[in-house]
């Protein structure tokens, strides 16, 4: 057994039904980022595996053959944490009230490359997932640990040039 598993092996694995995963995601969005769950009432939330997805109400209920996917993936729900996607933060970032970090142009460049960097985090930001911003626009998710910010931009979206 890996050491990480040893640490958590005494904890009971949370339930993973659709309702539970969605409730955990909404609670995490509210607690970590201050996003009121009422903002998602206008959409349909559903799960695929451990992911919570979001679509318009009509797109959520439309029945068609050979559906590949609907809407946009909001978050991955792990046993003991919830990780919002870059796309979700970019779309709903304007609702983020806490654990937000504003980056300057140089920091933004590194963030878009997917790198880890030392930053001066605001006092109210705590270790864990944070929303990174540039000129008021939400860039995506970073993982804050002390003064290190690790970009969570997926490889396929990174801007290297």
């Amino acid at each position, binding site marked *: 057994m890996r050491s990480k598993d040893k640490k958590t092996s005494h904890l009971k694995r949370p339930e993973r039904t659709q309702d539970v995963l969605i409730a955990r995601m909404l609670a995490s969005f509210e607690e970590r980022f201050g996003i009121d769950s009422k903002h998602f009432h206008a959409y349909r939330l559903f799960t695929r595996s451990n992911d919570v997805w979001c679509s318009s109400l009509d*797109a959520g209920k439309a029945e*068609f053959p*050979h559906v590949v996917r*609907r809407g946009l993936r909001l978050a991955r729900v792990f046993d003991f944490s919830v990780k919002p996607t870059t*796309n979700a933060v970019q*779309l709903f970032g304007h609702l983020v009230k806490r654990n937000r970090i504003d980056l300057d142009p140089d920091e933004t460049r590194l963030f878009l490359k997917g790198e880890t960097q030392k930053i001066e985090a605001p006092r109210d930001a705590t270790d864990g997932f944070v929303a990174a911003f540039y000129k008021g626009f939400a860039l995506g998710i970073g993982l804050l640990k002390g003064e290190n910010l690790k970009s969570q931009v997926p490889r396929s979206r990174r801007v290297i040039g």
Partner: protein
Amino acid sequence: MSAKRREPGLPQAMLARFEEMGLDLDVFVPALLRLPSQTFRINTLKADRESVLDALSYLDPEPVEWNDLVFRVKGRQKLGNLVEHFLGLIYVQDSSSTIPVTVLEPEPGERILDMASAPGSKTTQIAAGMQNSGLLIANEVSVKRIAALTGNLDRSGVLNSVVTKQPGQAYGHIATGYFDRILLDAPCSSEGTLSRSMRTLEIWSENSIIRLANIQHALILSAYYALKPGGVLVYSTCTFAPEENEGTVTHLLERFPESIVEPLELKGIDSQPGFSEWRGEDFDPRVKNMARIFPHLHDGEGFCVAKIRKPLT
């Protein structure tokens, strides 16, 4: 320039066809092979027009006349590397490619089908027009192209899409009379995009034009069946071949004579009417309402667009 004079890279048969279309090859061919000005479209799903323009003011973008969300930039820029592109605030899209959805006029809350949607430039433009509400079916038959489509839907923040993978021909059967609007940006011989990629020439031939026209005939009928009474179908291609443009629309009009080809008013675009005949074959006179966009008359790729309405009764 005579079609017999060899233009580097372009097949003799293609040049002969352009000449038959009445195009002056000395003017038309250089324009066809020259890259048009770069254009981008503001994605209003992510931010409002003014705040994006403010962020991009250093590019000195110039609005086009037919769509107040589309802008030209001077010189060649790496627009795909901009933070604003990463954020999904802009979509880099050729100016001509923005025309079909401008003509489609999507509205919030509607049911809309994009029958051949990859890579998603027009799909994301439709979603923005719908303000992420209603239902947008983004269909794509090629599994290879779906990754590009979903990537662009994600970057643009589209929530009202359902991506399906099946031949567009199926929609006439499975969703008869269902959609308010349909975009059929049909697979075509892509003659209008030669400035971007000469790979088109690898598959181009007179036979391939006939083969594609046959596919388009089936697709346009399927799209028409899937349309509600009173609904709008926009048919577009990025090719000049009359068989794939006026020929395909004439095929629909022969089958459904009651359908209406609406005249297009494209502000600021020097477009040409559809051809009335090709190689001795007369087209339905209503195809004159189609708009042909040539790169020597408009700063953009070659395109052809038709707006067809299904009557209420």
